[in-house]
């Protein structure tokens, strides 16, 4: 079974764009091990004959690609914590 260590939990928090205290990271260790132990049951199943199919849903019934009324810029921006001149506003990303 895959063993979780602190480095692995740190890797996952970085992939998840989440930050934790050392204490929180440590508390994840036994929890993840228990969860993993449960999901490892899947290894017992023989799936050699099974083929995966993507996409899973039928995509031959799409609606016509036609311009139509949509949300206004104002509506789209309503829930943004910071906007400027009709755009989402973020801190400067490139150096001067």
């Amino acid at each position, binding site marked *: 079974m895959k063993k979780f260590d602190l480095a692995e939990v740190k890797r996952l928090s970085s992939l998840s764009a*989440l930050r934790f205290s050392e204490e929180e990271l440590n508390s994840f260790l036994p929890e993840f091990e228990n969860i993993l132990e449960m999901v490892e049951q*899947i290894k017992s*199943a023989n*799936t050699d004959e099974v083929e995966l199919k993507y996409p899973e849903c039928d995509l031959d019934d799409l609606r016509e690609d036609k311009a139509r009324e949509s949300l206004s810029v104002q509506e789209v921006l309503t829930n943004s914590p910071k906007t400027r001149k009709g755009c989402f506003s973020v801190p400067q990303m490139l150096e001067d």
Partner: protein
Amino acid sequence: MEFEKYSLLELVDMLKSKKVSSEELTSYFIAQIEKKKNLNAVIEVFEDALSKAKEADIKIKNNENGKLLGIPVIIKDNILYKGKVCSCSSRFLENYVAQYNSTVVEKLLREGAVIIGRANMDEFAMGGSTENSAFGITHNALDYDRVPGGSSGGSAVAVAGGLCPVSLGTDTGGSVRQPCSYNGIVGIKPTYGRISRYGVVAFASSLEQVGPMTKTVKDNAYMLEILSGKSEFDETSSKEKVEDYLSAIKGKIQGLRIGVCKEIIESVKGMEVEKPFLEVINWLKDQGATLVDVSLPDYNLSLACYYIIAPAEATSNLGRFDGIKYSRRSEDAKNVDEIYIKSRSEGFGKEVKRRIMLGNFVLSSGYFDAYYNKAKKIQIKLKKQTEELFRKCDVVLSPTTGSVAFKLGSKNSDPVSMYKEDRFTIISNILGIPSLTLPFAKGEKDLPLGLQIMANSFKEGTIYNLADFIENNWEVK
């Protein structure tokens, strides 16, 4: 008048025949919410609820039609209703105001419903006890010291506690059925695609469905017909014809082939629900149904598959919460990376973070084949086994949960034991098949136990017929 004692269908008749007005009804239920505030089932009563009720009364006076004209409804806090906050019971979306209606809300409004408020839930629908809400825990309607179940705990308590005649929940792994079971009411997770998910905040898109939660089976059948149908904004919604589910209720079950699944019978051994479950099966045989022994060999792997597939999809769906477009942004973030990391770390609760991390684990390089692809392959295998199973029978019975609602706080420190609460419900989400729960027995302290009826895709009519028969003829004991 104590309106919570009436079924939805009775209230529809009373409104139509003008024995009661929508304003009276709505005021009554709003007062109930206030009176039972300690249950913490409802996060917000919409300020325009009474004015909408008055509008409905004018329509009733003018003899306009609408299957829910004037009926107060409560929706789960992850269903968009234009102009109203939809927070998913998360700090992240605390101030998020819906800019459009979900398809289900459109359908409710088209039939004249008065949406009076939003119900508490586990944050982003992740949990089985409604203890993961950023806005406090919800209490079981029948026992204040116990969980209401989850994630649609607020919606279930709203109906069971007499705060509204009908509510909507969402069910990704049992989130409609398990809280209905714990509160002694009826709930369905329909066939995947039966109801459009457009405008429902996504958790695990390939597994979830909206479901109505009601006091009676007939109320539920009535609601499902209203909510079902293809939406042009949801490719996964189905074009399959929507049945008149009330007409599918015939009052008899002669010739119905009930599948007794070996793996389910083995799973219930030693559980509180075992005795009444076996009794109801035998009773159904006496009532004219045919019992058929069936098997779903990989049944017991569904829980493990779920805790791979659902977190994988959740990780992807929750990637959109970056602190830029929606609601929350950390105040002391100095650059874009910090916006992402700090906003997410401050905005999400622990269970949500746990599942995002787990999802990233099963999707990450080196583990993708061993976990995610393997789980998807088992899902395909299970679907094939199910096709075989439904050639032999029309429905399969199972308990909804192994025992009555557990005590608040008793499973918080052990995620796996919490996850196992869904052991009987998850299979329907993995298979995409419809599954209904109705109260059928009493366990510890006379608290309710739910019976689950599953059928092949789009056979909700068959389920309602059997459920109604049990509701009317079987003595709950």
